[in-house]
């Protein structure tokens, strides 16, 4: 599979396929990576080191900051795969790389491709946007 690169990089991790969109601000503790949104079906799971798979995005414009802070704290997701382009997460990743030298690739994939990724699957992301299971 190949996605459109919103923030480039290579990463590996286990997929965390979100059942509902998640706002990182108000939804994730940037100190631990835990999902704290009480209404989210995956409340209590952690995004740290996972390949986050999200069909659509929602919520706060502060999510850029929360992603950059999660990078600083070492609890960022390994990569983020989205069903629609999102500037807020792309820029959070860009700033995390600029300040701390850690890359969190953010890719936009077709929804049908995202749906082919099972929760918990080992996913590799290569520079340039290639995704392999």
């Amino acid at each position, binding site marked *: 599979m190949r996605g459109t690169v*919103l923030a480039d990089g290579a990463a590996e991790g286990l997929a965390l396929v979100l059942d509902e*969109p998640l*706002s990182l*601000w*108000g*939804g994730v503790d*940037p*100190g631990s990576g835990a999902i*704290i*949104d*009480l*209404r989210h079906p995956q409340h209590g799971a952690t995004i740290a080191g996972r390949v986050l798979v999200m069909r*659509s*995005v*929602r*919520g*706060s*414009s*502060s*999510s*850029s*900051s*929360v992603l*950059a*802070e999660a*990078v*600083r*704290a070492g609890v960022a997701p390994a990569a983020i795969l989205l069903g*629609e*382009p*999102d*500037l*807020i997460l*792309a*820029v*959070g990743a*860009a*700033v*995390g790389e*600029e*300040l*701390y030298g850690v890359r969190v690739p953010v890719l936009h994939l077709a929804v049908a491709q995202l749906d082919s990724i099972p929760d918990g699957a080992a996913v590799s992301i290569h520079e340039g946007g290639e995704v392999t299971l």
Partner: protein
Amino acid sequence: MRLVMRAAEVLGAERLIPITGAHVDSCLYHGEATVDFVERLIGGGAHVSVPTTLNVGAVDLLHPELWRGDPRTAERGRLLMGHYRSLGCQPTYTCAPYQLAAARPAFGEQVAWAESNAIVFCNSVLGARTERYGDFTDIACAITGRVPDAGLHRTDARRAVLVMRLGADVPAALLDDDSLYPVLGIVLGRRAGSRVSVIDGLPPGIPEERLKALGAAAASSGAVAMFHAVGSTPEAPTLEAALQGTEPEEIAEVDMAELRAARDELTTATAGAPVGTQVGTVSLGTPHASLAELRAVERELAGARPAPGVELLVSTARTLLEAAEEEGLAGRLRALGVELLVDTCSYIAPVLRPSPLPAMTDSGKWAFYAPANIGVEVVFGSLRECVRSAVEGRVWRDTDHWGTA
């Protein structure tokens, strides 16, 4: 400039266009990364090139005694707010810059705004143009004075693709009930996601406060950056105008069952907090209260005070507080025991008195985020219900326009 170019790439823009102003959300402390970023900008000698307002920060700089959390976090939050001021941003510290006469862009103006509720209001209610900018991008656009020529900056992207029609079973009395609008926003956010929508079936000329509440909720449950309301928002004098003469992707009808379910979800307190349930706190002003809303609080109090032990807090902008001081309103509210918070908000700063009892709010956005952010159970109701509940110390309900299921 690199961040603005990155934004242009992500949005697929071929060129940059100038802006007349910006609203920056990056001044709210979310950890040391937010300080590291702005210190990098300051080190590079950056300065904003267009008039730029600031969003809420972590602390109420005018009433620091209200802070109940870790003093180190307050200090870092205060430092960050000052850093953005030193880049040339105006110390407005409000999530509702559109309520400040001097910061309100005119119809058609190109701006770069962050803060999800402000973005929706700017596009939908003012007809000024911004993309859904987030932290870091906002200040990058303010410094360069440029935005990508893409997305909602362009006329064609402002066309509604989803029509959300109110069902025939929505009673007329509910359309004139404040509590409908945040609930409608929650439903809209879920239905629309990031798509531009048009709401059909509302009465024309909806007041700004209701559109504000609707937009703030829609930007919490979804990624809504713009909606039209036929007869109320400037790019939707008619349904056809909102659709720009094209066919919508989807027409969705919203009936009472869906609205009631969304309303009930906003209340997290045990058993849906029936009438008579004790409340410990009532929080209003998310997004920041307008002067009209501050006056409404006084009107609903009608000279009464909150019940002993119940905190009634209203968040607003420091500029509006100043106006309220001048007309004597702020003094009268304080004399009745109302706490007025500025520069921040009661669900991002530890300011509420600790209480084991649920907190009541008229805001869909506050109801959405407060349980996770500050660990409270929430009861949702209209402004009138909130104020009367504060006075009685127990949940009070107005005439029921929602009907029974």
